[in-house]
C-alpha cells in the first residue's frame, strides 16, 4: 500500500477535482493548438496525409494579398467594434444602474441579442440591409437619400458587419459592467456629494477607477472576440458577393482555405498568424494595464 503524507493526499484530491477541466482543456484546446502548429509547417494532400515543407506556407502567406487584406479587415473590425462597443456598453450599464422606471425591461432588451442564435440574427439583419426592400433603405429613401448597397458595396459592407457585431456584444458587456458597478459602495458617492462633486465628477473620480478592473476584462475579451469574428461574415456575405475581399476576416479566410478549399495546412498557417497577433495585443494590454487599472488591494 502506498503511504501518503497528509499534504500529498490533499494534492491528490485537488488533482482529482480539476481533472475533468484539465483533461478537457488538454484534449479540446492544447492538443488541437499543437496539431495546428505542426500542420502549418506541412503541405496537406487530403485525408490527413501531409508532408513537412518547413516555412513554405508562411512564405506563401507573405505574398498573398488576400491574407493582408483579411488582416486589415480584422484589425478595422476589432478597433471600431471594441472602441464603440465598449463605450456604448459602459454608457448603457451606467444608465441602467440608475433607479429608472422599467429598468428590468431595458436590461432584458439589451441582453436579448446575446441569447439569440447568430444565424437567426444574421438573417434578420440581412433583411434590414436589403438594398431593394430593406428597412434602412426605405428610411433613406423616405427622406430623399439614395439607396445604399449595404452588404455588397466594398465601402460599406465591413461597417454593416461591425454594426451587427456591436449590437450583439453590447448586452453581454453591459451585464459584466453592471456587476462591477454594483460592487462600488454607495458610501463613496455619499461622501463625494457632501464634498460637492457633481455627477460628472463622480463618474470620472469614483465610477471609472472603481470599475476599471471589470472594464479591463471587458476590453481584453472584446478584442479577442473581435479578432475572431467569423459567424456574421459567414452568414451575411456569400462567396459571389463582390465585397467579400473587403470583409473577410482572418478566421473566415482560415475557414475558406481549410474547409471550403480543403487546404488544411495553409489554413493552419493563417490561424497561427492570428494567434501571434492575439498574443501580442493581449501582452501589450497586460503591460499597459498598470497605467489605468486600479485594483482595490
Amino acid at each position, binding site marked *: *500500500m*502506498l*503511504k*501518503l503524507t497528509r499534504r500529498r*493526499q490533499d494534492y*491528490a*484530491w485537488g488533482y*482529482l477535482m480539476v481533472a475533468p477541466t484539465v483533461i478537457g482543456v488538454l484534449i479540446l484546446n492544447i492538443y488541437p493548438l499543437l496539431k495546428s502548429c505542426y500542420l502549418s509547417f506541412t503541405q496537406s*494532400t*487530403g*485525408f*490527413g*496525409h501531409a508532408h513537412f515543407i518547413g516555412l513554405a506556407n508562411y512564405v506563401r502567406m507573405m505574398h498573398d494579398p488576400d491574407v493582408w487584406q483579411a488582416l486589415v479587415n480584422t484589425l478595422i473590425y476589432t478597433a471600431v467594434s471594441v472602441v464603440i462597443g465598449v463605450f456604448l456598453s459602459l454608457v448603457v450599464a451606467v444608465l441602467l444602474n440608475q433607479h429608472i422606471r422599467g429598468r428590468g425591461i431595458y436590461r432584458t432588451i439589451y441582453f436579448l441579442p446575446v441569447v439569440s442564435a447568430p444565424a437567426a440574427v444574421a438573417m434578420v439583419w*440581412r433583411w434590414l*440591409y*436589403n*438594398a*431593394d426592400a*430593406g428597412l434602412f433603405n426605405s428610411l433613406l429613401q423616405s427622406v430623399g437619400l439614395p439607396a445604399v*448597397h449595404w*452588404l*455588397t*458595396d466594398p465601402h460599406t459592407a465591413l461597417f454593416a458587419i461591425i454594426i451587427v457585431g456591436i449590437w450583439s456584444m453590447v448586452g453581454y458587456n453591459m451585464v459584466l459592467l453592471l456587476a462591477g458597478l454594483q460592487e462600488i459602495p454607495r458610501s463613496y458617492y455619499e461622501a463625494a456629494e457632501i464634498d460637492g462633486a457633481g455627477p460628472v465628477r463622480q463618474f470620472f473620480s469614483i465610477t471609472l477607477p472603481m470599475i476599471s478592473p471589470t472594464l479591463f476584462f471587458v476590453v481584453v475579451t472584446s478584442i479577442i472576440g473581435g479578432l475572431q469574428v467569423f459567424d456574421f461574415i459567414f452568414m451575411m*456575405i*456569400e*462567396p*459571389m*458577393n*463582390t465585397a*467579400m*475581399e473587403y470583409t473577410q476576416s482572418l478566421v473566415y479566410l482560415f475557414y*475558406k482555405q481549410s*474547409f*471550403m*478549399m*480543403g*487546404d488544411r495546412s495553409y489554413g493552419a498557417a493563417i490561424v497561427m498568424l492570428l494567434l501571434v497577433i492575439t498574443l501580442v495585443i493581449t501582452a501589450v494590454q497586460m503591460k499597459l494595464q498598470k497605467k489605468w487599472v486600479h485594483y482595490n488591494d
Partner: protein
Amino acid sequence: MKRAGRIWRWLLLALLVMTGIICLGGCGQDRSMTEDGRVRLSYAIWDKNQQPAMQAIVDEFEAENPDIKVDIQIIPWNQYWTKLEAGAMSKTMPDVFWMHPQSFVRYASNDILLDLTGQLGDDYDAANYPQGLSDFYTYDGHQYAVPKDYDTVALWYNKKLFDAKGIPYPDETWDWAKLVEVAQQLTDADNGIYGFLAPPDQQALYYDFVYQNGGEILNADKTRSGYREPATQEAIQFAVDLSQKYHVSPTVQQFADMSREQYFQSGRAAMAFFGSWMLADFKKNDYLRENCDIAPLPRGRKRATIYSGLGNAASAQTKHPAEARRFLAFLGSRKAMELQAQAVIPAYKGTEQEWLAANDMFHASVYTDGLDYAVIFPNSATREKWMLVETEILSKAWSGAMTVPQACEKLADRIDDYLATERE
C-alpha cells in the same frame, strides 16, 4: 494510511469505469453486424427529399438479400464532406455513400474509394448509363462509383409575362441574339421586372454559354485552363453583358440580396436557366406550376448544356466489400433506378419515363432530351479549390471591378497553378 488508500482506490475505480464506458461504446459491440447476424451496411446521403426513394430501394434490396441490413444516414450537405473526410481519416467512414462530381477525383485519387472494376456482377453493364457519366466515375482506368442520376440545364420562362406582351414562348429555334432581344422586350425597369436572370453561376449559366460558344473551361487532359481562349472569354463577356450592357438582368450586387430562385418564384423575371435538380422544389410551388414552363437552352454557335450526376460509391475501408458491391450493383440496377425516378432523373437508360410522368405539369422532357447535346461537367482533382477562386474572380467581372479579359487571364493563371499541383 487507511484514508490514503481510499483515494487511490477511488482513482482506480474512476479509471476502470471510464475505460468500461469507452469499451461499451467501442470495442464491446461489432457495429458492422446486426444482433441476428446480418451484415450491416451504412448508406450516407445528404438530400432529405430523396430519403423516401432511398428507403424504398433499401427495402427492396433487403427483401432480395436477407443477409444484409442497410441503415440510411442523412448528413446535411454543409456537413457532409467534412464528416466524410473525417471518417476517411479515422476509419469510420460510412460503407456506401453518395458521391458528387466535384469531389470524386480527389477521393478516387487518394484511394479512399472501393475499386469496383469488373466486380459488380454479370448484370452490370456500363452501356446502360450515359457514356460521359460512366467515364466520369472512372479514374485511372478503374471504376469507383456507379452512376445514380443525371442533371442537365434548361431555360425556364414565365408564361404570364410573355402573354402580357404577346410574345411567343421560347423554343428550340432560339439563339443568343433572340434571347437578348426578347429579354429586352420583357424587361420593365419601372416595375422591377427583368427579362433574364444572369448571376455568376457556373453550371446553370456561364459554363453552358462557354460550351455553346465552342470554348472550354479545362482542356481535354486537364493541364490547362480554357479561360485564355477567345471563345471562352467571349461567352463570359456575353454573360456579363446581360446585366452590365443590356440591363436585362439584375446585377451581381442585387443577387446578393435576392437569389435567382427568389426573383423567378416571385414573378419578377421572365426567363432564367435552372438545372433539373431544381424541379423537386419548383413543382411544390403553386405559382410556378401555374405560370411557368421549360424550353431548351438557346443555342450559341452550337447547342450545349452542362450535365453531370451523382454516383454511389463505397469506402475502401469497409469491413464488407463483397456486400457493399452487391448493394452498389443493386443501386445501379433498373429496378432501383425506377424506384428513385420520382425524385431525380435516373441514370439508367430508358427509366426516365417515371420521372417525366412525375413532372408532367412542365415540359420536363427538355431536360432528358438535352442529353443528346450535353457536355460533361468540367472536373479535376483540385476542382473544390479552383471553383471558389473562379466564383470570386468572375464576380469582379460581373460587378465591373475588372474587365472580362483581365478577370479571365488572372483566373487562368490561378487555375493553371492548381492544375500544376495535381501533377506533382
